[in-house]
């Protein structure tokens, strides 16, 4: 298992488009990726659930990756967050 934390800098927060891209990428990895924020958690591959967390700018998200290659997937996810959020 691997994990990292990221503070959202996007003005609108974790909004529809990046959530959608995240879901796509998360599915492609085949790993189980969980987001924790604001006392809620969601499977990163599920767009609606991720949006339902209502993550706004300035909030800290904890990302947990389980499965083979957890470290590599976590690194990939961290890059995604930095580039899109």
């Amino acid at each position: 298992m691997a994990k990292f934390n990221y503070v959202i800098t996007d003005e609108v927060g974790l909004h529809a488009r990046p959530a959608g891209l995240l879901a796509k990428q998360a599915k492609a990895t085949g790993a189980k990726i969980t987001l924790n924020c604001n006392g809620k958690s969601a499977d990163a591959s599920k767009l609606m659930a991720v949006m339902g967390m209502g993550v706004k700018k300035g909030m800290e998200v904890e990302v947990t990756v389980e499965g083979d290659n957890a470290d590599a997937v976590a690194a990939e996810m961290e890059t995604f967050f930095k580039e899109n959020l």
Partner: protein
Amino acid sequence: MQVIQGKSIFGGIAIGPIIFFTKEQNQVKRSKIEDTAGEIARYEAAIVTAQEQLGKLYEKALKEVGESGAQIFEVHQMMLEDDDYNDSVKNIIETQMVNAEYAVATTGDNFAEIFAAMEDEYFQARAVDMKDISERVINVLMGVGEVSGWEEPSIIVAEDLAPSETVQFDKSKLLGFVTRLGSSNSHTAILARTMNIPALIQIDIKEEWNGKMGIIDGFSGEFYIDPEPEVLEKYQEKKAEQEEHRRLLAEQKGKPTVTKSGKEIKLFANIGSVSDLPAAMGNDAGGIGLFRSEFLYLESGDYPTEDDQFKAYKMVAETMAGKKVIIRTLDIGADKQVDYFNLDKEENPAMGLRAIRICLTRPEIFKTQLRAILRASAFGNIAVMYPMIISVDEVRKIKEIMAEVKAELDAAGIQYGEVEQGIMIETPASVIISDLLAQEVDFFSIGTNDLTQYTLAIDRQNAKLDEFYNPHHEAVLRMIEMVVDNAHKAGIWAGICGELGADTGLTDRFMAMGVDELSVSPTFIYPVRQIIREYEGPTK
């Protein structure tokens, strides 16, 4: 004629026949299904078709409104791929043994409710997306086609418009739209802005308007149905002006404000609150020549705190990013009354306790404002100017107070920037002694509205005096020239921030006088810039 007040989500004027747009009402009926596997297959096929439609809409929107406006369809595609959404539909079909249409409608409503209940406005607005994607799938399932076209360019009136509907409309035939629902944060609103079409929301729409003439006033938020001929004529003129302005805008945007003889003029914008900033930026303002700080006091039920003021000033300074922002200190009294100031009723308020006179009799209010201005000056290029000055003594007193405030900030270790101090020239007295006043300050800004009223002894509010009122009165123009001359002799600059500054009939004369700065309503920047750029005569 009917006039209805709504909320504007995009400015501009639209005039044309109304089309009352009703969605083909797909009454989704719940029906019992035996072959649930077949029903799920039917749903999966509908999703494929819906995805294809969205792909085409994405391409169309990309061409018409660009990447940012098109993204919504990509997002809709992603939403339709969502496991939770798909699982919910399939689960309803299987467990309740119902038709796919019903399962989709129920799922869409459930998801819409979840988003509608969220705190953040952005996420709340996503409820519309849930309904939109679900409606699309239902239409495919029921074999209903997409929005059909119409012949004549029209104003669309509807309950609500989904983004997919907005973009499907033939742009050349869409003049504007009016809806009952919708928020200024919805995708539809964003698309309206990108497509540059006037749009109103929160209007109690009626089907009987179909086919009648309508006018959208995207500036005031009013919607006219069956307008009187005079109203129609007025709006046709306004629309022509608006188009002319757009044409000017295209030509003048980004060009320097320099006369043919090479003098660069500061062409600034007047703003009355933070919300005017986009207009100032959008019209290429070289700075803010008059930031009326009264709004902070007028909008508030009590004296605005130093922090409230600081935030507003800082926001403007940061947004203007190094361009000059001239904040005029509190100018209430006369026609602008604020209850909590507890000012006495006056016989002649225009000549009463107002503006700087209040500040000098109640320095605690003044100091709060100056502290906020100084603190904000650390974040941009801020200048301050004082209204209603009549004597050198007043200016010296103000400077003493300013020095006290600076000393307090220094003592507290709070940062501030270099702040130029200027005065408004709006009384005949200040004109006559402008040579003396020029020794005390960094700049003059001529407030022509009050200066004209005080010079001509004509009350601006009294319509019966219109025949005597001449805004181009030679006395006022000579006064302006005298002020500019005295400013230049003392090595400081002089500008105009009153209505005359935007009077394009006088721009040439102001250039000849040597006026250094004109501060005008944002929409006048381009017309004034055009004249300045064409001015060939001498400047002082």
